[in-house]
């Protein structure tokens, strides 16, 4: 049926990198509390406003701005589970959040694809979503799956099509980047229930989750937030993600931008906890910079020192964090820029302690898919994984007896200990593949071959027949309602 399914290999490390000290974290939190209490955040949603009003927040129905007293913020945030589990289609791929383990996924959500046949740019389709879900399923760097590109051939129900085609090609947890609004999210919950066979199992091992983006500065998106309320009620995790840009949608200082982003994330978190206490919520701030002449979005300036500080802010609130890695601005598959900008990301974000991390494999600021890019980025991921991996120091690895056998001079090639360990002592990545002449191969050629090989050889277990029919029925119902 299929070749052996590679296991998930998350980045594990006992080490921790602190960008901020306790006092700085307290000051940032204090700024957020002050913004929420005195400035407020706009919630253009009657449902959201009603929840806030019911719990004693200061709600201005006209401006739709909610000011939240600090006690209410602190109490609500305290019910966020610190270590939730992201369930998978296959229980073997469930992801229990834990300290020192960073689970990565692919990038999203792109809209352009370099066609593998013509080499031309074209809009992404449902088939592309399925193809990348299958590649994700094979790669050990991928602990879960994101909507890598959008199914632009599927109209308004494309987020549901993306979910279905991902499940058909992938046994891991699926984090949607595109589901929007109450109706779509209700259908998604229905599909999750069909997959699990009951609502309790959805709550216990949620097979899906959702990225919910805020609008900087200090505004929530009606559709996003109302969809999130539906998922939270079902116990399905959400990731509240703010993307403040220094100088345009946020102050031009790091701390100020983080405060704005944090206030957006925390205000949405408070809403979800007030509506559904204990609903799993992840915290994420992916700040960027604006070009001072054109206001163009810049994700990778030279000084990006606080890139992973938001992970510590999340933990300071007692929340799990999603960190953003990769996502070069280069439109090239394998330019110096496309590798150099992102090369340190997986190491830094794992050291910062992010529980989950996006996004491997897109180019041109999260918009452009070369299917083979995921293989190149995967290589950087594994470099970081090995860099942080525990070193075994024990009698077998110290090999003092073997050193004694060889003595000064000579060599270790004729030692049985060498025979036992030499095969695995050196691991080759995509940049170290050799051709038949023993010369280094072009990594891009190798990456393309690997993509082709995966697509030809890796075929994850299809959904059970009854589940597939039930999901088809739900998708048809969604098509009817949402296209009406």
């Amino acid at each position, binding site marked *: 049926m299929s070749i052996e399914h590679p296991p998930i290999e998350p980045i594990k490390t006992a080490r921790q990198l602190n960008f901020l000290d306790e006092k700085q974290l307290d000051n940032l939190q204090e700024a957020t509390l002050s913004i929420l209490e005195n400035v407020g955040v706009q919630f253009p949603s009657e449902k959201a406003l009603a929840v806030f009003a019911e719990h004693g927040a200061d709600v201005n129905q006209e401006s739709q701005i909610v000011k939240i007293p600090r006690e209410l913020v602190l109490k609500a945030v305290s019910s966020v589970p610190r270590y939730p589990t992201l369930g998978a289609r296959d229980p073997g791929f469930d992801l229990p959040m834990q300290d020192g383990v960073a689970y990565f996924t692919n990038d999203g959500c792109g809209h352009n694809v370099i066609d593998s046949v013509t080499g031309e740019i074209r809009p992404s389709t449902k088939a592309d979503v399925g193809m990348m879900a299958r590649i994700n399923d094979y790669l050990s760097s991928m602990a879960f799956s994101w909507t890598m590109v959008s199914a632009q051939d599927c109209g308004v129900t494309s987020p549901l099509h993306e979910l279905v085609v991902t499940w058909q090609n992938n046994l891991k947890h699926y984090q949607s980047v595109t589901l929007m609004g109450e109706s779509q999210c209700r259908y998604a919950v229905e599909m999750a229930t069909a997959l699990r066979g009951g609502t309790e199992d959805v709550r216990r091992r949620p097979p899906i989750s959702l990225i919910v983006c805020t609008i900087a500065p200090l505004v929530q998106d009606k559709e996003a937030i109302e969809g999130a309320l539906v998922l939270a009620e079902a116990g399905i995790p959400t990731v509240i993600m703010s993307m403040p840009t220094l100088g345009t949608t946020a102050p031009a200082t790091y701390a100020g931008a983080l405060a704005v982003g944090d206030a957006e994330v925390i205000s949405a978190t408070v809403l979800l906890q007030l509506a559904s206490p204990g609903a799993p919520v992840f915290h994420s701030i992916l700040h960027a910079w604006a070009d001072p002449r054109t206001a163009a979005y810049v994700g990778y300036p030279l000084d990006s020192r606080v890139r992973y500080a938001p992970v510590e802010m999340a933990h300071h609130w007692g929340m799990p964090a999603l960190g953003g890695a990769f996502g070069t601005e280069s439109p090239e598959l394998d330019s110096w820029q496309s590798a150099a900008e992102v090369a340190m990301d997986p190491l830094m974000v794992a050291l910062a302690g992010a529980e989950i991390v996006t996004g491997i494999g897109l180019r041109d600021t999260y918009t452009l898919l070369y299917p083979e890019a995921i293989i190149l980025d995967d290589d950087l991921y594994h470099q970081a994984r090995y860099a942080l991996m525990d070193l075994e120091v024990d009698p077998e690895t110290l090999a003092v007896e073997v050193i004694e056998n060889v003595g000064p001079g000579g060599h270790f*090639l*004729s030692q*049985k200990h060498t*025979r036992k360990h*030499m*095969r695995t002592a050196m691991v080759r990545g995509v940049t170290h593949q050799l051709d038949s002449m023993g010369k280094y191969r072009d990594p891009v050629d190798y990456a393309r071959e690997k993509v082709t090989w995966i697509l030809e050889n890796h075929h994850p277990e299809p959904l059970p027949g009854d589940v597939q029919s039930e999901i088809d029925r739900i998708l048809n119902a969604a098509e009817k309602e949402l296209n009406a």
Partner: protein
Amino acid sequence: MSEEIYNKLAQAVIDGEPEDAEELARQALEQGADPLACINQGLMKGIAKVGELFSSGEYFLPELIIGADAMKAALDVLEPALMGDQRRDVVGRVVLGTVEGDLHEIGKTLVGTMLTANGFQVTDIGVDKKPSEFIAAIQEADADIVGASALLTTTMLQQEKLIEALKEAGLRDKVKVMVGGAPVTEGFAKDIGADGYAEDAISAVDMAFRLIDAPA
């Protein structure tokens, strides 16, 4: 009975078990087996298989070297027991060493192992060897080829000195000279009057076959 001991000897080489190979060689002699047949139908078959597995990528360097060590351990027992004018069949005889002032061993050892696996009789004289030591070994082994290794730009000049010494000793026409080592190039080999140069151990085997005009 004999067939079984030959197979066991071959297997000890393939498995890279020098202690087993030596013990099997003793047992074979005790049981009255023909030492020459033990070598040709046991050890040589085993080492040929090791070479094959290495060339196909299944075996790595340690398997190759330990296989050759196992063969050598058994040969040390069997060769002294060869009767009268019995000599084992070899493709050719090679003396190998690293030149004077140079202590690098691995490249030369790999070449020796690969040659052994391909049927050559190899006398490895070790590292830091003077031309006179090479010459003594060539005479003793009645060698067809001498291989001189150097890993330093300062010691590669000794390869030329060896060739001069061979001329002085009247051996230059009798023995082919192969040179190798990281700084050595084909051009350098030609300049100093060597007969052959190889970049790595596998191509060294092809070169050795060419030099003695035998089919690889």
